[in-house]
């Protein structure tokens, strides 16, 4: 193995560890985003809203919002992607640390990166819809009618921390782009190492052929 190839392999091993760890971290982050409440509501409407579920009570009576149900269904793909990232990262880790060929794991990670990039737009759209719909839960029912001044209370929406910060595109986009860059770099390194290995094997065969002369 040449010096350059040795450097590449060492770098690849570091990159695989880093990318698979980051994949697990990103997967958990994505699952956390869709599964934990992003907003809670207090007042005449009480409850919480997450991308995948919501529980809201209007004067202690459960209310169901169709828009949130749509978001729950659409968020399933993000949840699936999160689960995939965790599994792909964990399996790559397993292949790497058990000394097996981890090239398939690198491909899994790269596939996940491509899908993350494709799902980023959907995720941002869902978060935007969640935010705008939740904003409508800011109600003020106090009103002046012909009967007099009616004090019925109000409701306010509050973001939950840290989910609210994590939902920000300023966090989500760099998190996914970092993964995409890491997975791509790892994939390219893996391809390069594979190519060098094949070239070395080919050279070895050629030398053997010349020496043995068969």
């Amino acid at each position, binding site marked *: 193995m040449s010096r350059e190839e040795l450097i590449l392999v060492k770098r690849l091993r570091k990159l695989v560890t880093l990318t698979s760890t980051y994949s697990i971290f990103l997967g958990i982050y994505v699952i956390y985003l869709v599964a934990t409440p992003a907003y809670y509501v207090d007042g005449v409407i009480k409850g919480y809203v997450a991308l995948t579920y919501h529980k809201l009570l209007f004067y202690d009576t459960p209310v169901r919002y*169709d*828009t949130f*149900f749509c978001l729950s269904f659409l968020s399933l793909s993000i949840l699936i992607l999160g689960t995939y990232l965790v599994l*792909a990262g964990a399996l790559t880790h397993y292949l790497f640390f058990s000394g097996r060929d981890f090239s398939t794991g690198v491909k899994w990670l790269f596939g996940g990166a491509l899908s993350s990039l494709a799902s980023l737009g959907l995720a941002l759209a869902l978060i935007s819809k969640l935010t705008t719909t939740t904003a409508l839960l800011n109600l003020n029912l106090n009103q002046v009618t012909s009967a*007099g001044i*009616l*004090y019925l209370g109000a409701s306010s929406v509050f973001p939950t921390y840290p989910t609210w910060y994590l939902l920000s595109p300023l966090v989500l986009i760099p998190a996914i782009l970092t993964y995409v860059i890491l997975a791509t770099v790892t994939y390219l390194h893996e391809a390069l190492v594979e190519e060098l290995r094949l070239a070395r094997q080919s050279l070895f065969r050629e030398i053997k052929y010349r020496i043995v002369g068969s």
Partner: protein
Amino acid sequence: MSYKSTHLITMAVVISFLTLILLSRFTYFPLNFSLVSGYSMYPTMKPGDLLVSLHKDIVGYDVGDVVVWCSNPTYCTVHRVVELSGSQVVTKGDNNPSEDPPIPESYVRYRVVLIIPLIAWLPACLACMSLYLIKEREKLLRLARGFGDVEMIVFFVLTIINLALVALVPLHHFTTEPTLVKPSMSLRSVEILEPGSLILVRYGVQNLKLVSVAGCLVEVGDQVLGCSAYIPTSDSVAVVVPPETYAVAYKEGLTSFKVLVNLTLDKGFLVGSYPLHISWSKLGISVSNNSLILSNPNYLPINVTQVRVTYMSYDKWSRTHKVTQVKELEGFTVSPKNTYVLLIEGRGEYAYVMIKYLFMGEEVVEQRRIDFS
């Protein structure tokens, strides 16, 4: 046909099917598949149920049919038609408290012809898919190897899932407005019940309940009097007017007063202020046979302080009217919103009855003639 061709055809069919479903929201397509994603049509449709719909040009629709209407390709609603009026259609979710705003007829695209419950289609799909994968796993693996790299397959599968969900789950057109029935209360009427001791305030109540009366005040001029109130029916409040209310208003020459009530509701409270008009009138006096009928239209008793009956007779020969007797009667009180009959003893031909009472600080004198024929 090779296994490769068969599987490629299967995959092409699945992709085409998904594409067509997606396209059906953008353009004319006879068939549409939607996934129910809310409770607005509960219990007819539950979240996760798969709807098979046909284009309205094929099956038509009428009042009572469940239709799919879209204001744009991403915002679609599946609700029941409740009214058709010309070019407007009114729909309503079975589980929604109110109707949707009218929509143009052109928004309606499909009529739902089949509802496949989630518990039927999902296990069936999963079972079919599992059977297919188990049975054809070797061939599929070989196909996958031949089709492309692992990364491409992963990307392809996850993208298909994304597309399928986006195609099947339309975002709802409405958000919170039709879901919440906001409580409201309006004033229907405020009236003073005879003989003035009670004021009945009627309300138009929506999604609210009157629980109790927390406070009640009567404001007459500069004076504020405490009062009691109760809830006789679910939508009204009866205020017991303090007896001195009218006396104060009468004394100060006021023609209005205010009732202030503070109601405790099941979802909050109401502070209401209701002005009431009082029209003070003099006693109404009429004659019937030998009686003088005095009616009091006011909410206060009126004391008649002086009654003088002047009996008269007519002398035919001298053709003159003579006073035969003048009789002073005892004063009396005419109750509020009541009448008092003053019976005059018949003597002579006729009599003049003069009554005197105080009204709004001024002395009023009235006289009537009673004929004893």
